């Protein structure tokens, strides 16, 4: 496992992330234009969705798909409850902010999904293509759970914001649409499509991921510099412990379902990841009283680096133990 951790830490992907982090903390003027960051994210989601779909077209779907989808949805619903309880018990966050943070940790981070598949591919560990669909299914339930908690605790309902409209918006948010859409296209076009798109979507993937993680490092570093004041020891501890709790829960479910090593690693990583595309935007609409910087600093400034540097090799090792 230490070898795995070292190999991970010395991979170009992780090192480019660290470069970005260091550049931001050194206040370098290195920047990635917003349009470029969006192109890189679009590409990565398209690539991973398409590869997942093509894999499904090739290997078919075994009986575990439905169970895994259910497990993912369950995790996404349950984790916010747990996260909320921990936050209220150990930190000074008020109910609304605690609910907002809980929603982030219940949902998933598409970028962390991209990173774990990058590492798995490098290690030659196969994962089931339908995990892409599982990831998509895990995005929304956490938002519903967090809104129920927030309404229950704060007694307030969101003025002027219909729950239905909000969930529809989250379900059709850009990153989900491209991920699921590319998955379906991969499944429909199969080997023929995969051959055609391989140079663009497969061969270039690690390089684009490096560039993207450089950007994520820059954004995380700026976020950390800005959000330092929110990082009390208790809150920071939450951002590291919560992924581990999610990992253990997901590991147990993966073991019960009998997932393959690669898919177990993906499910664990999804559960351990915290959203920073879909959920932050949804929270600005549904819980505007929550301070967005708190959840973003935790998710992007602490949990994402933790997962990238330490978590992913840990989760892969854990998946190895579970499926041994």
């Amino acid at each position, binding site marked *: 496992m230490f070898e795995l951790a070292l190999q991970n830490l010395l991979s170009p992907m992780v090192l480019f992330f660290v470069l970005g982090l260091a550049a931001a903390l050194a206040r370098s003027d290195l*920047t*990635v*234009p*917003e349009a470029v*960051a*969006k192109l*890189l*994210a679009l590409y990565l989601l398209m690539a991973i969705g398409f590869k997942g779909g093509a894999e499904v077209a090739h290997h078919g779907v075994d009986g575990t798909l439905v169970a895994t989808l259910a497990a993912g949805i369950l995790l996404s619903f349950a984790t916010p409850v747990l996260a909320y309880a921990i936050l209220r018990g150990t930190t000074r966050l008020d109910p609304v902010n605690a609910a907002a943070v809980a929603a982030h940790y219940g949902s998933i981070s598409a*970028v962390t999904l991209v990173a774990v598949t990058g590492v798995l591919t490098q290690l030659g560990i196969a994962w089931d293509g339908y995990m892409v669909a599982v990831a998509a299914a895990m995005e929304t339930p956490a938002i519903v759970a967090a809104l129920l908690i927030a309404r229950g605790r704060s007694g307030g309902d969101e*003025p*002027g914001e219909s729950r239905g409209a909000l969930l529809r918006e989250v379900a059709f948010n850009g990153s989900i649409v491209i991920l699921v859409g590319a998955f379906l296209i991969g499944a429909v076009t199969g080997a023929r499509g995969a051959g055609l798109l391989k140079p663009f979507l497969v061969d270039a993937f690690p390089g684009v991921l490096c560039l993207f993680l450089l*950007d*994520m490092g*820059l*954004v995380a570093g*700026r976020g950390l510099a*800005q*959000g330092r004041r929110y990082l009390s020891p208790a809150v920071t501890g939450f951002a590291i412990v919560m992924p581990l709790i999610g990992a253990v829960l997901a590991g147990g479910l993966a073991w019960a379902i009998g997932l393959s090593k690669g898919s177990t690693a993906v499910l664990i990583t999804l559960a351990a990841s915290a959203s*920073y*595309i*879909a959920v*932050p*935007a*949804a*929270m*600005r*609409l549904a819980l*505007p*009283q929550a*301070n*967005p*910087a708190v959840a*973003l600093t935790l998710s992007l400034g602490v949990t994402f680096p933790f997962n990238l540097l330490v978590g992913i090799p840990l989760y892969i090792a854990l998946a190895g133990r579970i499926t041994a």
Partner: protein
Amino acid sequence: MQTFPKKRIEIVVEAPLLRRITARLAETGVGGWTVVPVLAGHGQHGDWTAEGQIGTASQMVMLITVVDAVRLDAVLDGVFALVSRQIGVVTVSDVAVVRPERF
């Protein structure tokens, strides 16, 4: 050239809220607006920059709308119903236009 007085409202607001604001403007009978990108900003909620962002949550935009003075209060009421708890800034200024029937 003869000009006519109107009001220019400038709203700097979080990007996820934009759709709701324009919908509200349309309901209030506002005939037009223009949305300008914002690179970076600073306020009570600290610094932010659009650079490298992939989501819209920490993004802001600037909306400019020119309206007739008689409509000003209705527009401000509608906008503040939405932005009061959100991050943002609203300013109003006097402008002159040449084709008054448009606003």
